[in-house]
């Protein structure tokens, strides 16, 4: 309680500082869930902001804003202090963003990874991270010796579940004996806890570690234990040069620049953007040579096919854990189904926390 209150206080002080500098110019605000120095999720959004700034547009940002009620106050404050376009960069900002958007019809809002666009001034955007997960699954399935993949999950939201499923389906395709062990840590960012989760999975026999959390702690734990891992959101290779096979990199910069310019020039329209490998919003880090030349070639081909649409991450037949069919043979999952994904596919162990 105190913590949140003081975080808000700090944010407010921050905003105050920025609003002093404000003038009538066009201004873009960013709300981050973590610190810009997380070297993961928020770091990449911040890189996007830097690109907007480089394009000659004024920006401000507020970092480490907890999801929930505090977020609404921060977003409202940004809207009140003369920002024309506001990017809210975490799933948990979905309702606060829409609530504030209602009261500020002249301010444009862009919410990352959400699906609610209740007012005409709210756009949503996300990246098809699951395409990257498909590549990771393929690599993991080939690289594991224990047939056990450890997965550190943050919160049971469709985006995270989609990643688990995409990875498992791809791994099963190359290695039918694969088991996915999942640990939910209920945080996006707690290096200590993420390291402990990685260690628990390694102790339980996982020799490939994957994370849907934001710090570099899991890859470092994997490096120490001598097992494989993958970087998340940003290229984490230098934190675990031996262990990291590749990283999924989020590249928000082109989108942020495009939308900021559109808003400034008055051509901004509400839309729902979901870009992937094709558009470059999802990119892959360098492949580790330990994978061997053949596997690298295979994965690069798969990456091309995913980008061109020749291969889809969710191609039927896909079954849920109970064996009910989710996607029929020869069909692919549509975006509506992907966006609302809330069940595990067959082969994933355990239940989704409710």
């Amino acid at each position: 309680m105190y913590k949140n209150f003081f975080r808000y206080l700090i944010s407010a002080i921050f905003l105050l500082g920025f609003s002093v500098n404000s003038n009538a110019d066009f201004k873009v605000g960013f709300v981050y869930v973590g610190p810009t120095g997380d070297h993961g999720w928020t770091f990449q959004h911040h890189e996007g902001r830097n690109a907007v700034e480089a394009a000659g547009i004024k920006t401000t940002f507020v970092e480490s804003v907890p999801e929930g009620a505090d977020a609404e106050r921060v977003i409202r404050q940004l809207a009140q202090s003369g920002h024309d376009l506001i990017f809210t960069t975490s799933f948990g900002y979905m309702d606060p963003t829409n609530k504030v958007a209602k009261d500020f019809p002249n301010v444009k809002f862009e919410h990352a990874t959400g699906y609610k666009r209740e007012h005409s001034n709210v756009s949503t955007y996300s990246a098809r991270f699951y395409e990257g997960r498909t590549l990771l699954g393929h690599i993991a399935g080939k690289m594991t010796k224990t047939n056990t993949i450890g997965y550190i999950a943050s919160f049971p939201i469709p985006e995270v579940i989609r990643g688990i499923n995409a990875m498992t389906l791809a791994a099963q395709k190359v290695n039918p004996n694969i088991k996915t062990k999942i640990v939910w840590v209920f945080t996006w960012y707690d290096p200590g806890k993420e390291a402990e989760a990685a260690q628990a999975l390694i102790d339980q026999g996982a020799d490939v570690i994957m994370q849907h959390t934001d710090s570099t702690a899991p890859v470092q734990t994997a490096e120490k234990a001598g097992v494989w891992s993958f970087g998340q959101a940003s290229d984490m290779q230098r934190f675990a040069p031996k262990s990291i096979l590749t990283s999924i990199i989020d590249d928000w910069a082109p989108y942020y620049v495009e939308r900021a310019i559109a808003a400034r020039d008055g051509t901004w329209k509400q839309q729902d953007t979901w870009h992937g490998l094709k558009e470059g919003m999802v990119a892959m880090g360098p492949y580790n040579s330990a994978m061997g030349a053949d596997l690298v070639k295979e994965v690069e081909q798969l990456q091309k096919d995913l980008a061109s649409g020749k291969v889809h991450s969710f191609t039927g037949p896909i079954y849920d854990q109970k064996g009910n069919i989710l996607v029929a043979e020869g069909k692919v999952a549509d975006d509506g189904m992907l966006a609302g994904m809330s069940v595990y596919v067959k082969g994933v162990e355990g239940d989704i926390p409710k």
Partner: protein
Amino acid sequence: MSLDISFIGILIGSIMASSVPLILAASGELITERSGVLNLGVEGMMIIGAISGFALMVITDNLFIAIIGSMLSGVIISLIFGFLTQSLLTNHVATGLALTIFGIGLSAMLGKNFVGIPGKDFPILFSSLRESIPFFGPILFGHSIVLYFAFALPFLTNYFLKKTKLGLVVRAVGDSPVSASNQGINVILVRYCCILYGGAMCGLAGAYLSLIYTPQWIENMTAGRGWIALALVVFATWSPIKVLIGALIFGGITILQLHMQAIGFRIPVQFLSALPYLMTIIVLVVISRDSRKIKLNTPTSLGRIFYKEK
């Protein structure tokens, strides 16, 4: 789950490693509180220790200097708290909270240039014995020197408070500063020393995270451990040994619940996540039921401002 004996040894080893920051910070805060000072700045002092230790490691390439430097940085920042509360007689709670906010902000600023630099391997002791002795090997050997120090600390603290004259002085100052002062004890000086000691231990706890446990600097990397250490002191009813037990239970259940998830126990994950907090409180409440002992250990004048009448 392979329940073989050597696996349990590894498990206990990692539980010990995860409880070190809690033991260090809580033991330091315990001495501070026993002298009657409530310093809520634990989280802030830890994070300052974390960045100072990491920065010094990068700059000097010397882990010894980094460790000593992190403790000194804790001392310096707690000196601010000491000056405000003891010399300027400000409110302990408000000043401590301010110290935490200040520490988090300052560390983020200092750390800007240290983000993204990989840490260094911290030397571990007796690593060959760790591998060669089943079960006891991973428990007793292959840890950093800081861990051994952390596990000795609660016993040393207990001895200090109960058996030494200085310990008696600290307790007297915490219980009844007025009588202590009348006995010729310099209450303010004693409290200053206890505050600085607490700062040094919190600094070390932070450095353990940034140099040994997850060797890197990331903003806000203490992630609330300072608050847990603070709560531990209270629930352990100001007894150093119970602080150790509490920290081990908290670290233990945290890690066990991750293992239970990985094994696939069909228990709601939210319940498992809450378990460390629940169990720690329950166990500490149960082992601290003796109200006579609680009275004996509780610093009666905790958080009260003392000033000497002239």
